[in-house]
C-alpha cells in the first residue's frame, strides 16, 4: 500500500498496483523516494478522491480486455467525466501533475466534446476568458471562414 497526502492534509491509502498508473509516483517508488507518505501539494482531497476512484477502477486494464469487461470500463469512464467544469479542470490538472496518461486523455476529450459546438460567447463565459480582440480583429477572423460560425449545431448555452 502507498499513502498519498492531499494539500488539505488528508491521507489516502492506495494499492501499489493502482497508484503506479501515475508515471510520477511510479518513478518515485522505483527511485526509493516513496518510503512513508507521498505529499501532493497541488491536489486537494476532493480531486484526489476522484483520481483514486479512477485508478482503482482501471487497476487491471489489460485483464479487462481478456475477460470482456471493456464495456463495463467504458460505462465507468462515461459516468466518471459526468462532472462540472471546475471539477473536470481540477482532475485534468491533477492527471497532468501525476502524469496519468489515460486519465488525461479521457478528461481532455470530454472537455473538447463539451466545447466543440459552443458559440464563441459561450466559451468565453464557460472558461471565464475576457475578450481582448477589437471588433475589427474579430470581423477579420469571421471573414476568413464565415461557414465556421454558422450551422444548426452552434450552441449558445453555458453548461
Amino acid at each position, binding site marked *: 500500500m502507498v499513502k498519498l497526502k492531499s494539500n488539505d492534509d488528508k491521507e489516502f491509502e492506495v494499492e501499489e498496483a493502482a497508484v503506479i498508473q501515475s508515471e510520477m509516483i511510479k518513478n518515485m517508488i522505483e527511485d526509493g523516494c516513496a518510503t512513508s507518505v507521498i505529499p501532493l501539494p497541488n491536489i486537494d482531497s476532493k480531486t484526489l478522491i476522484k483520481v483514486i476512484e479512477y485508478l482503482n477502477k482501471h487497476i487491471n486494464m489489460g485483464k479487462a480486455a481478456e475477460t470482456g469487461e471493456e464495456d463495463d470500463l467504458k460505462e465507468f469512464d462515461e459516468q466518471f467525466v459526468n462532472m462540472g467544469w471546475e471539477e473536470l479542470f481540477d482532475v485534468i490538472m491533477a492527471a497532468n501533475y501525476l502524469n496519468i496518461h489515460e486519465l488525461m486523455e479521457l478528461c481532455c476529450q470530454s472537455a*473538447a466534446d463539451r*466545447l466543440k459546438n459552443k458559440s464563441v460567447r459561450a466559451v468565453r463565459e464557460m472558461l471565464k476568458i475576457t475578450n481582448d480582440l477589437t471588433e475589427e*480583429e474579430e470581423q477579420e*477572423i469571421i471573414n476568413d471562414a464565415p461557414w*465556421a460560425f454558422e450551422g444548426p449545431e452552434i450552441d449558445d448555452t453555458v453548461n
Partner: protein
Amino acid sequence: MPALPTELVTEILARLTVKSLLKFKCVSKSWRALISSPEFVKTHLIVCAHQRVVLTEVRDLYSFHDVQYILKDYSLNTLRNDPVTEALDLYYPMYNPQQKVCVVGSINGLICLAIKDKDFVLWNPSMRLFRHLPLGVPCNLLSKFISSVSWSYKEESHVHH
C-alpha cells in the same frame, strides 16, 4: 476558477475539429495566437491524424451512360467499431456528380483530386480551401508532383490561415 495553463488548453483544443478551431480563434488574442501557431497545427495533426477516410462511390443508375461519382467521408473509428457507419457526401470543388472524379493521393489531410482525368485540384476539405494544380501535368509525373507538394506542406504550410 483558476485559468488553465496554456499546455493544458493546447491538449484540449487539439481534440477539436478544424471548424471549431477556426471559430474559437475569435475567443481571445491568446487563443487566436495559439490556434494559428505552427506548433499547434503540428500537435493537432498528430492527435487527429487518421480519423477520417474519403472513398469514391460510383453509382451506375440505369445504364453505362448514367454513372454518378460521389465522394464519401467516413469516420475511421466507426468504420472499425460500429456495424453501421454514417457517411457524408463531400462537396468537393466544382462538385458535379456527372463528371468523373477520383482521389489521386493524400497527405496530412490534403487531398489531390483528378476531375475528368485532366483537372487536378489540391483540396483541404477541413478548411474548405482548394488550389488548381497547373494544367497539362501528365499522369506519370503526378506522383512526383504530390511528393513535392507534401514537401512544401511540411516545410512551409503548417498554418491554419
